[in-house]
Structure formats: C-alpha cells, structure tokens
C-alpha cells in the first residue's frame, strides 16, 4: 500500500475520506444545509482531481485501473453525486433527512461507483459494486416518513442480496475455470479451446444475471418501477443514472476484452436487448405515475445501451458513453423536476395531480417537457444524437434488426413521453398546488436543460472527448 497507490486513487480517496469526515462532522453540527453543500463541494473537488490530476500508476494493486476512461467515469459519477446533493437541498429539509448521514452516504456511493468502473479485477469489481449497492439500500429507505420508502428499500435489498449471491457465484465459477480474478487472465476462461469453457460460461451466466439486476434488464427489471416509485426522488435519479451507468461502464471494457470468445455472451445480450427494448416500452405505455413511467423508460433505454454495449469497439463504446451522458442528463433532470415538486407529506407523481399545472410553473414544466422529449430523441435535443449514434453503430456493425426494433420502440415510446406533456399543458387545472422551486433546483434544472440543448445542436466536442477516453 504505497503512497503512489494512494495518489493514484486520489479522487476515490477524497470521496471516501470526505464521506467519513462529513459523517463525523454531522454528528456534532446538525445543520443539514451546510453538510449537503460541503458534500457537494467535496464531490466537485474529487471530480476536479480526477480530471486534472495525472495519476502516477497505471494500475493499483492489480484491482483498479487509472486509465483516462476510469478518470472520465470518476468525474461523471462525482458530478452525479454532486448534482444529487444539490437537488436534495430543499427535499432533505422537507423530509428531515439527517444531513450528515445523507451526504456522507452519497459521497461513499460515489466512491464505490468510481471504483467499480475503474475495476480491472473481479475482486475490485465485486467490492466496488457491493460498496455502493449497500449504501443505496439505506438511501432508498432513507425517507423514514413514508411506507413506500421502506417497501422500496426492502425490495431493493432482497434483490440486491440475491444478485450479490449470483455475482459471487459467477465470479467463483470463473475463478474456478481460470484460476485468476484479473480480467485479462479471467477472460481466457471463455476461449473456445479452453476445456473449462462450460464453467466459464456458467460463470458468465451468473454474472449476466447480476448485471441484469443492476441495470434492470428484462426479465430482471421487475423491481425497478417499485423501487423508483418508493425511493426519494433524488435517489431515484441517482439509481437511474449513475448506479446503472457505473455498471455499464465497468462491463464495457470487460466485454471488449472478450473479443472473439464473447460471441456467445453477445448472442445472449442481443436477446436481452430486444426483450428489454420491447418490454420496457410497452410496459411504460399504460403508466399513469411519472416515476414509474420514468422507471420503465429507463428500462427501455437500458435496452438501447445494451445494443451499444454488445456492439462494443470504438463505435459502440462511443455511442454507449454519449448516450449514457445525454440519457443521464435527461433522466436526472426529470427526477429533479419531481423532486422540486415534492410536498412535505408526499411526492407529486400521478398525472392526475399535475393536470394543467404547466402554466402555473412554466419553467419546471417546460424543463420536464425538454427532458422527456430528449429521452424520446426528438431533435434538436441531445437525445436525438444519442439515438442517432446508437442506430448508426447498430447499422454500421450489421445489427440492422436491432436498429429497426430500436426505431419502432422509440416511436411507440413517444406516446408515453408525450402524455405528461399533454397532461401538463393541454388539460385543465387540477386542484393541486405544487411547491415553488428554490434556487438550487433551478440552477440544476437549468444546467441540465442548457446542456441538453447545447449537446443537441453541437455534440461534436463531447463525441470527440468520448472517443478520446475510450479504453
């Protein structure tokens, strides 16, 4: 455990130690706002560190890489955490969150994610994944004033635990097949000539189940809507964006490393992608609850991402990361809007409740419209170029059928993305009175909208950056 290693893991260190510090401090000074802000600053610092500080080592302890890719991911997750803290300012007050705990848990989740996406060995992957999953159990049930939070927590817990079991078993099998945890050797287990290939395959099957749970692929997605609905809105946002993104980001190089041997895995992914796109889209159609709809839509989007994931390579990776970014912006923004609408006693989620409120809260309503249309992939919003990239990649690498299905689903998806917009702007007022937003919320939402519009008309630089960081 040399100093160099610590230096190389500076951002994660900042996050984790910062988390501890905030925790300690929170015990003494019970001012919520302060700790949230401090936490946010720490996350930002971590992001800057990851972006600017050149790590001395390429790989730490044979578990975590410090490639550009890893650093990029770290920046991304740290920013997500910062955003979550920012959007939570008012929300935390309303629901009397313990400021210290909340901030510190989020920070540690950030650390876990960045470790996960930086993992170069199964041990590291396992630990990183578990690190932030554990924290999320708590964060989901963090709102101790309503039963739904508890139920959501329970559901996530049970499935998380089972998924952990599968993950561990998968790792164990792969280890049995290859005798190493490190990706580069472990992947050998799938080589066709390897006589232990069946073991490796079984291991991959278990792994895929675990991933399927984490990024909620069909048929492992059933928990998603319930958990998103029950969890505090900011946490739902984090779950839908960073928590999934980290896993995807971790598996992108892993699959890439498979090379030829990954053929079989890719076939399964192909199947899962189709299933996920279709089921996610259709299940979202009849939803009348904003958060559930977003949950199912995130399932569908995972389908698109899966397409990019299984294409892999430069094209697929570029499409994946770009899509992940714009998808996260939009989804997080949407949950942010829900957050800032929330009342003390309940979150406003049902369409019936937000009927015709678009003109009462024009800024947030139109922001939501922008987010949803971006998710639908309507130009000139960033979502369009995301989809564009995915279809482009799919066609380029001969997955025409996936592209076609993607097109069909995104057409159908338009219906459920338009519904909230219709409800907000085209129906007469409901009796509800939403909470007026606060500065932080406007700051964040404005930021998301601006980013979506900017990347919608000028995605060039981002695409180049993404291409640059790819492993």
């Amino acid at each position, binding site marked *: 455990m040399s100093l160099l290693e610590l230096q190389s893991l500076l951002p994660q260190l900042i996050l984790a130690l910062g988390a501890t510090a905030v925790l300690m401090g929170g015990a003494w000074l019970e001012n919520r706002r302060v700790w949230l802000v401090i936490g946010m600053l720490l996350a930002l610092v971590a992001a800057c560190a990851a972006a600017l500080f050149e790590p001395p080592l390429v790989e730490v*302890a044979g578990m*975590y890489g410090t490639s550009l890719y890893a650093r990029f991911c770290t920046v991304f997750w740290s920013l997500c955490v910062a955003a979550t803290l920012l959007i939570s300012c008012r929300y935390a007050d309303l629901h009397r969150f313990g400021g210290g*705990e909340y901030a510190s848990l989020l920070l*540690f989740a950030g650390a876990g994610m960045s470790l996960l996406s930086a993992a170069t060995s199964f041990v590291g992957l396992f630990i990183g994944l578990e690190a932030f999953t554990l924290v999320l*159990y708590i964060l989901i*049930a963090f709102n101790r*004033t309503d039963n739904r939070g508890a139920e959501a*927590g329970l559901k996530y817990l049970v499935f998380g635990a089972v998924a952990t079991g599968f993950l561990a078993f998968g790792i164990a099998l792969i280890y049995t097949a290859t005798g190493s945890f490190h990706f580069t050797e472990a992947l050998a287990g799938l080589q066709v000539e390897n006589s*232990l290939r069946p073991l490796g395959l*079984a291991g991959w099957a278990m792994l895929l189940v675990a991933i399927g749970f984490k990024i909620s692929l069909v048929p492992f997605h059933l928990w998603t809507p319930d958990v998103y609905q029950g969890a505090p809105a900011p946490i739902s946002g984090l779950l839908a964006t960073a928590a999934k993104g980290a896993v995807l980001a971790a598996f992108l190089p892993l699959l890439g490393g498979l090379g030829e041997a990954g053929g079989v895995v890719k076939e399964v992914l192909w199947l899962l992608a189709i299933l996920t796109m279709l089921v996610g889209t259709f299940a979202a159609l009849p939803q009348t609850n904003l958060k559930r709809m977003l949950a199912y839509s995130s399932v569908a989007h995972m389908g698109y991402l899966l397409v990019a994931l299984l294409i892999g390579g430069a094209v697929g990776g570029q499409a994946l990361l770009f899509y992940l970014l714009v998808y996260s912006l939009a989804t997080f923004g949407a949950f942010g809007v829900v957050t800032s609408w929330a009342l003390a006693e309940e979150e406003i989620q049902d369409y019936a409740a937000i009927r015709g409120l678009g003109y009462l809260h024009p800024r947030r309503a139109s922001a939501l419209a922008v987010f949803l249309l971006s998710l639908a992939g309507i130009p000139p919003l960033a979502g369009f170029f995301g989809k564009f990239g995915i279809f482009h990649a799919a066609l380029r690498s001969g997955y025409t059928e996936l592209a076609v299905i993607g097109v069909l689903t995104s057409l159908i998806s338009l219906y459920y993305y338009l519904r909230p917009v219709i409800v907000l702007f085209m129906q007469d007022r409901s009796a509800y009175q939403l909470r007026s937003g606060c500065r932080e919320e406007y700051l964040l939402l404005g930021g998301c909208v601006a980013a979506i519009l900017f990347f919608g008309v000028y995605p060039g630089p981002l695409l180049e950056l993404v291409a640059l960081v790819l492993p």
Partner: protein
Amino acid sequence: MMATLMFYLLGAIAVIATLLAITRNNPVHAVIYLVNSFFALALLFFLLGAPLVAAWEVIIYAGAIMVLFLFIIMMLEIAPGQEAGRFGPNWLQWLPILLLAVALGACTLLLTGLDPLGADGVPRWYASPRDFGYVLFKEYALAIEVVSFQLLFAAVGAFYVGRPERKNKPPGEKP
C-alpha cells in the same frame, strides 16, 4: 483417502442440515440447523486447506451472524407458524427451480463428461496463515481499506435505519 471420506460425509451433513434449515417453520430452529451446516462447511474449508477461512467461518458466520439473526428473531418475537402456506400455493414457483437444477446438473455432467481436470482433482494443499496474511496485506491491502469503509457505512446505515422514529418534530422544521 481418509480426507476424501470426510469430504463426502461433511458434504452430506451440510446438505441435510441446510435442507432441514430451509424447511423449518420456526425461524429459530432454522437458524440452529444452519449453524450445524456452517460447522460442516467450516470443516470442509479446513479439509480443502483453508484453516484460517474455516476459523472465520465459525467465528463470523456461526458465531456472529447467526447469533445476530437469533437475536433479531427473539427481539421481534416472530411466532412460529405465522407463515401460512410457506411453500407457496402454486407449483409454478417450483418449476423454474427444478428446471434450473436440471440445467446446472446438465452443466456439471457436461463438465464431468469432458473431464477436463482428469486425474488431478483438488490436491492436498495447505495455505498457512502466514502466507495467507502475507498475500492479504500485501496484495489486497487496498481492498481491505475499502471493505473497512464499507463496514463503517453499513454500520451507519444500520444505525440510521434501525433508530426509532424521532417524534415531536413537525415536518419541514430544521433539527
């Protein structure tokens, strides 16, 4: 030879104990049986050359975790038989499991059919605590750090969740 025999014996014990554990109606009994199966497992570990792990198995699992379970069960005074139709009403939920069993069985059969390992199965091999400790703290120090953090925050979470509701605070007011 002796060891081989032990292996199968302990394996049988573990399986039977587990089987009993998961079928118990009363959680307390279940835990007790599970402790048995864990002891058997611990011995298996020892047999497979992992004395340290075996020790920890006993200490952490059988000792700590199971006791914790027991403690919670007591605390919540979950009466036995509270769980009506505990094996579920429909055979449908068994179907996937059976199929899964078949599938995994097929996997292993396939494996044995291929018999990639041939003669050299699990050898007699012994990881002394020293080597173990060496590897653990040389190569996996970082992991240990992370895991320790993890435990810390798990504790925090457990505390936060388990702590009783703070009454007499109107919503929205800053503590």
